[in-house]
């Protein structure tokens, strides 16, 4: 095992542990903090893949914006009551079944996983062009349609949120 693999092993194991902790910790604010740590680990993994842009965006968007909003909402809750209640909902067997089936799926799909696949953008090509440029190019040429669809979906979500917030009054 060389250094890179060692690092990867660390990140993989700790990410799994963190994920389990996030759903099992009683205090939601603590689980959000753990989630923050998890996001950092993910960002670090992106760095291993030479995807600095993704790593930075991971931190800015997920850690900096989305998670803060989560925190915002959770802080509003009456946590004292929340701490008393059970952490898991009654329908946990369904969740377990779903989770297990996904694991089975992945297990069977593992076969088709090709670690040596190389697309047009090799690491060398990306390094020559810088990460950001490469992502921009690929996003606005090859994946333009999915990108636009995704943004439309987000727009709908925003409009929906506003409509729901307005109705309350």
């Amino acid at each position, binding site marked *: 095992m060389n250094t890179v693999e060692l690092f990867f092993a660390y990140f993989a194991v700790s990410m799994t542990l963190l994920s389990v902790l996030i759903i099992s910790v009683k205090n939601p*604010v603590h689980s959000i*903090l753990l989630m923050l740590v998890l996001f950092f680990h993910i960002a670090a993994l992106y760095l291993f893949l030479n995807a600095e842009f993704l790593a930075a965006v991971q931190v800015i968007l997920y850690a900096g914006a989305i998670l803060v*909003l989560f925190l915002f909402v959770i802080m509003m809750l009456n946590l004292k009551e929340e701490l008393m209640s059970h952490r898991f909902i009654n329908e946990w067997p369904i969740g377990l079944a779903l989770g297990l089936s996904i694991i089975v799926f992945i297990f069977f799909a593992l076969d088709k996983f090709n670690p040596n696949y190389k697309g047009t953008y090799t690491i060398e090509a990306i390094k020559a062009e810088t990460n950001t440029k490469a992502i921009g190019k690929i996003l606005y040429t090859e994946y333009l349609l999915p990108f636009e669809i995704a943004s439309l979906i987000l727009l709908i979500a925003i409009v929906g949120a506003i409509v729901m917030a307005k109705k309350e009054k």
Partner: protein
Amino acid sequence: MIDLIRIHTGDIIFNILIILVKTAVVFGVAMLHVAYATYFERKIIGHMQVRLGPMRVGYHGLLQPIADGVKAFFKEDIIPLNADKPVFIIAPLIAMFATISSLAVIPFFDGFVIADINVGILFLLAMSSLGAYGIVMAGWASNSKFSFLGGLRSSAQVVSYEIAMGLSLVGIMLMAGSLNLTEIVKAQQQYWHGMFLVPQFLAFFIFTVGAFAETNRTPFDLPEAESELVAGYFVEYSGMRFAFFFLAEYVGMIVMSSISVICFWGGWTLPPIIVNTFPFLGEIPGIIIFLLKVYCYLFLFYWVRATLPRYRYDQLMSLGWKVLIPLALLNIVATSLIKFFF
């Protein structure tokens, strides 16, 4: 000497050593700056307000920051009984380390940067958004309603102003064609004015407002609005933990000033037009020019604090969402159009 060390240690360890030394230097210099930033803030605002500021410790109070530091260090550390202890302890550390780690990617002069990464600007934005965690966590963990409100205000404020600030920097990225801070400084040298401030004045305005909001400075100091929330999110903190927040705020100010200097004021360089007319100015070390520019920008922080009243929460939000973000978008569109056609 250096070569001797290199031979004896090998490349990787040597590089790590160099980085450690650089980090130590930057950290030390930054801490000194923070200490004296507080001193100058008190002095400058004092003189603006027809009073003298600190005068007692040392000549004209010059040792005051050190006295303050010693005092904060030895003060009793109080943790409220019903506080969420781990979060309460982590919060100031998050706030401080998030801002201090921003210093890692800032090039202070040509070639001097701890980590010269390609997405420098994004890293800075990421770190400044992390600073909000410290504040929100502190507000929540103190188990006090005033600090809770401060935390809420801060989270909403930081999230909304970061968008405007990030978008305002997109113009710079477009102009420079890179996210690397060193590259951005170098890109500015192509122009006769040597500053992105001239073509990107709109972005500069948005960035400045955003920087004030990010660092929770007047007129956007709502999270700690003294007259409303007493001291906002750090109302329950004392001693060293309180000092950490203080430190975070001032390092944040220095980081924001540095970003502004790098992105808009040409970093450690002087405008080519000036250097060409007075060639001897080109001999000034870059660090001096950089620091002078940073001081000017810091002065702006102080000046505004002495002048402006505080915004109200909803006014702050409407300014952020209804004025700054549309303006920033407009700036991006205009910049890219100009860049595309010329």
